[in-house]
């Protein structure tokens, strides 16, 4: 292979002669840096030094830079350093790629307390900004809905149908499965815990009421926030990165109307439908467990369920679904439109969309719970 960079020192009439040999290339990166540093070690103050390059076999830009830096350092210490015996291409290389001092990047030092306060303040400010942005986005969507109402041809039916299939039909298996499991788990725990009071038949009430009022819609909304909300943010965000949104704007098309509206409408339709399926799956899970685990026949289960729930139990769960869907869609849309430039920003915004929409869905659920108990529904 090639020879590592080396230097030999000698003294002649002109002063110190540093004879460089070998390959001064990045292939020998560690040796290159060490040898170049050794070059700059002065043997004495003042006088002259000659860098003899005639034995250098190969040199690249890194080598040229390192040698030239050593020469500059020698100069700085009052040792007049010059080159000798360089081939024309090496002279040219050192001229083109030689050393120039750079300003070291200024490190920004803040005390930990200040940076803690800064980030807390920034988070609070951003949270307020996000809320304002979300509300303004929601307002825009509502205004657009009313503006578009008289013009059915401007609703993007094809796009809506496409997204509806994606969001609802293709989510059915996973939604049915997780809600079936939740129903089964609640039933099993209910039977187990309530049997201590001899009240295990009331586990049916637990599954019926808790499941239909809260769990089914909540699990479905969380699942859709993770599955569909993230997809919306990623789609819109990558379009924003590639200037596709700007392209729509200059065609005098409103990206909210073209991109967000169909997704939002599809989501608002999809979530109640999925919630209904989730209700059925949840009850089925409870029924199977009560039958296999507690020996309660399906007829008994259904009779008890009939006594435990009223239509409003079911409706309370279903009413919440479109609001949750709108929340998920709006947060996903805002985050998507907010993507700037880098792949990292896309990742951050998708994460933010999922986290925020799950959080908001749970907050919304709590507000609905207070509302329904206040109106005794």
């Amino acid at each position: 292979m090639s020879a590592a960079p080396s230097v030999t020192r000698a003294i002649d009439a002109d002063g110190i002669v540093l004879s460089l040999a070998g390959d001064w290339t990045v292939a020998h990166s560690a040796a290159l840096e060490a040898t170049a540093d050794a070059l700059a070690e002065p043997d004495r103050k003042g006088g002259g030094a000659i860098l003899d390059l005639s034995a250098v076999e190969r040199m690249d830009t890194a080598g040229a830079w390192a040698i030239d830096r050593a020469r500059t350092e020698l100069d700085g210490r009052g040792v007049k350093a010059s080159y000798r015996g360089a081939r024309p291409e090496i002279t040219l290389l050192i001229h083109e790629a030689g050393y120039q001092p750079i300003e070291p990047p200024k490190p920004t030092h803040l005390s930990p307390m200040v940076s803690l306060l800064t980030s807390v303040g920034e988070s609070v400010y951003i949270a307020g900004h996000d809320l304002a942005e979300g509300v303004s986005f929601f307002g825009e969507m509502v205004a657009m809905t009313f503006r578009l109402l008289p013009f059915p041809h401007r609703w993007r039916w094809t796009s809506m149908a496409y997204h509806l299939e994606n969001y609802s039909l293709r989510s059915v298996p996973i939604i049915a499965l997780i809600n079936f499991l939740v129903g089964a788990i609640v039933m099993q725990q209910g039977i187990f815990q309530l049997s201590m009071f001899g009240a295990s038949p009331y586990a049916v009430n637990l599954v019926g009421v808790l499941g239909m009022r809260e769990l089914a819609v909540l699990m479905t909304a969380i699942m859709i926030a993770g599955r569909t909300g993230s997809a919306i943010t990623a789609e819109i965000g990558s379009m924003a990165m590639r200037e596709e949104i700007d392209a729509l704007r200059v065609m005098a098309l409103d990206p909210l109307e073209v991109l967000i509206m169909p997704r939002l409408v599809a989501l608002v339709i999809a979530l109640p439908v999925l919630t209904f399926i989730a209700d059925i799956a949840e009850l089925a899970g409870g029924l199977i467990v009560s039958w296999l685990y507690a020996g309660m026949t399906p007829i008994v289960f259904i009779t008890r369920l009939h006594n435990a729930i009223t239509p409003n139990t079911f409706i309370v769960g279903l009413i919440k679904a479109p609001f949750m869907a709108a929340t998920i869609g709006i947060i996903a849309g805002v985050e998507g439109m907010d993507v700037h430039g880098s792949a990292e920003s896309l990742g951050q915004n998708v994460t933010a969309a999922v986290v925020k929409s799950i959080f908001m869905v749970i907050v919304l659920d709590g507000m609905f719970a207070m509302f329904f108990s206040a109106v005794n529904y």
Partner: protein
Amino acid sequence: MTDAPPSSETPQAVIRVRGLTVGFGDRLVMNGLDLDLYRGEVLGFVGASGAGKSVLTRTILGLVHKRAGTIEVFGHDLDHLSHLEKMQIGERWGVLFQEGALFSGLTVRQNIQMPMREHLKLSQEMMDGLAAQKLRLVGLPEDAADKFPAELSGGMTKRAALARALALDPEIVFLDEPTSGLDPISAGDFDDLIATLQRTLGLTVFMVTHDLDSLFAICNRVAVLGHGKVAAVGKIDQLLLSDDPWIKAYFHGKRGVVRAGGRPEQPPASQPA
């Protein structure tokens, strides 16, 4: 036809492609293509848009699977490489992608230092210095170092991507349309830079380009891609004498004649745009 390389007496092929066949579905893009890239030369590669120039580049780089044929780089068959040899070849070539392909989450300086950090053992101080040197070489201002790719203009992106391609002082540089989107002055500077690097480092350059100025100014040889093969290869003067209708149209069209020192055969106004 003489394929003599510019500087060396005995042509040494650093890349040797034989019988390359590449296809997508039932469409063959490369059909038995042969190509040699000699050490120290600048090979310009031209062809109609969609003829497969980028596909050829990506196949040589190992990004597209070939159906048949062999590709040798530095004498190693790319099909039979150990992991170590792959790493070594990765240090010896640099690529300037058409869109730059800078890592969007890193600053320009970090982009340039990325290959250094992964492949070399250098102190941070030296890497900072070398990054600044590469930026100066490609003509970017010093304050560009701390910018993110999204904050760069198109021309700056090209230069930053070239700086990254040069980070390891590679022996071969692949340039995919390096001067497209640059103003004529920048494009000229770019050509000068490539010529300087070729002279000083003995850089071998594989350049896909449509820039006739680049072809005339710095390419030692020009290869023309047509019908999945290298239709013609040679010095540009020889290609100018070619009878092939596409080559004639390419170099003697209304944009080519001026460089070739001729005059349009008919006034441009009478030609459809």
